[in-house]
């Protein structure tokens, strides 16, 4: 078949992708392609109907108590608001920078937090230089022409708000209402992508229930933003299940 000759085309990965048999750079490459290729997206949807049937073919009756445990856990678990979902789930082609007004409001909100935290930092120790630099880089991301705002609920409670600029390869994150951790544990941020998981800093101690703004740089295509609970010193690789996974490309 003529189609076969073009084996190197990302398009041919649709089957493997639908089977979750694509990882790393292959996966990132196909996802980029998917953003541009409408017929691929349609094909993928159809192939996933077939894989759903493969799943149905191995259905098993659940052991006693499993469904009850799920229902109990769900009753305690906050849901993602639809508005956040619209922003976060929009396809790359359809995603646009936020209206200027919304961004300005977000920037103002961030700036207020930055000022408050800046004051705390100042009074705390001699971190003037670091704080000033941080506020500068944060302001840069917030004012970037391609800045996009995403909010999401965090598993076990709280919300995270991210403003990101692909131009600046950076993002700014604040969180609100994250559960308090024992002294031995801290929240750690990650950039998780085809090139592996990279630590992106620890969240500072909350102030009035809010943390951040935290600045992370070095965004690469296909990256997700992850948040995990780790030993207070931080780790080089995530050791627990992420309580937040934000698709930065979607």
């Amino acid at each position, binding site marked *: 078949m003529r189609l076969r000759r073009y084996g190197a085309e990302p398009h*041919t*990965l649709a089957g493997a992708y639908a089977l979750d048999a694509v990882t790393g750079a292959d996966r990132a490459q196909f996802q980029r392609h998917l953003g541009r290729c409408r017929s691929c997206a349609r094909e993928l949807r159809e192939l996933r109907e077939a894989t759903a049937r493969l799943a149905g*073919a191995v*259905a098993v009756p659940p052991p006693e108590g499993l469904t009850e445990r799920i229902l109990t856990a769900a009753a305690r678990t906050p849901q993602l608001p639809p508005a956040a979902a619209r922003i976060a789930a929009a396809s790359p082609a359809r995603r646009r920078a936020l209206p200027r007004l919304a961004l300005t409001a977000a920037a103002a909100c961030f700036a207020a937090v930055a000022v408050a935290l800046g004051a705390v930092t100042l009074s705390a120790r001699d971190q003037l230089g670091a704080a000033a630099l941080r506020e500068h880089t944060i302001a840069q991301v917030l004012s970037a022409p391609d800045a996009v705002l995403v909010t999401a609920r965090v598993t076990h409670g709280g919300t995270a708000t991210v403003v990101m600029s692909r131009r600046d390869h950076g993002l700014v994150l604040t969180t609100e209402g994250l559960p308090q951790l024992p002294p031995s544990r801290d929240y750690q941020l990650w950039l998780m992508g085809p090139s592996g998981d990279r630590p992106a800093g620890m969240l500072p101690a909350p102030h009035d229930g809010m943390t951040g703004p935290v600045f992370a740089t070095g965004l690469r295509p296909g990256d997700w933003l992850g948040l995990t609970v780790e030993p207070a010193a931080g780790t080089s690789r995530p050791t627990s299940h992420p309580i937040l996974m934000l698709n930065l490309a979607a």
Partner: protein
Amino acid sequence: MGLREAGRRERSGTAAAAATGDLDDLLGAVARGDQDAFEAVCSRAVPTVLGVVRAVVRDPSQAEEVCQEVLLEVWRKASRFQPGRGSAMAWVTTIAHRRGVDRVRSERRSAERELRAAVHAVDYDDVAETVEARLDRERVRRCLGALTELQRESVTLAYYGGYTFREVAALLQVPEGTVKTRMRDGLIRLRDCLGGQK
């Protein structure tokens, strides 16, 4: 035909509407925080989710854990489900398979599992099941049987074994490009064979 009629009959029943209602509609209610709707989603989806996760993860207690994570993700992200972009069951099983594969790959990195184990991961006959599930299973098995051997092995090793296409190529000792196209061709044939038999 008979199945479609059965499906219609089920859906038109009012008493058991919540338990047999359309999964797409139920997810809409779940997105609004409706816990009864979520219970109905669970009764429909948990057997399938648990089945696919168990096929991939193998260990029953880990499979239960992952299954719970999957359903919680469904609960949390119900507002993101877009009915126009595929069926609710495909959305749920995509989450389930992805999570199962993530779990098994993080544990498999050091210890390569045997090909034989993956091929036999699916034991079709070890569970009691509903008539509907058995009929569905028969259709899928028949359609899998209509694939070429390489298509079938590529698809089942990836889906039930959790292997990447590169790993499948190494296991089957065929070029990666060949496996890639066989996976796609195999799924397209499977889709065509199963199509209209919903």
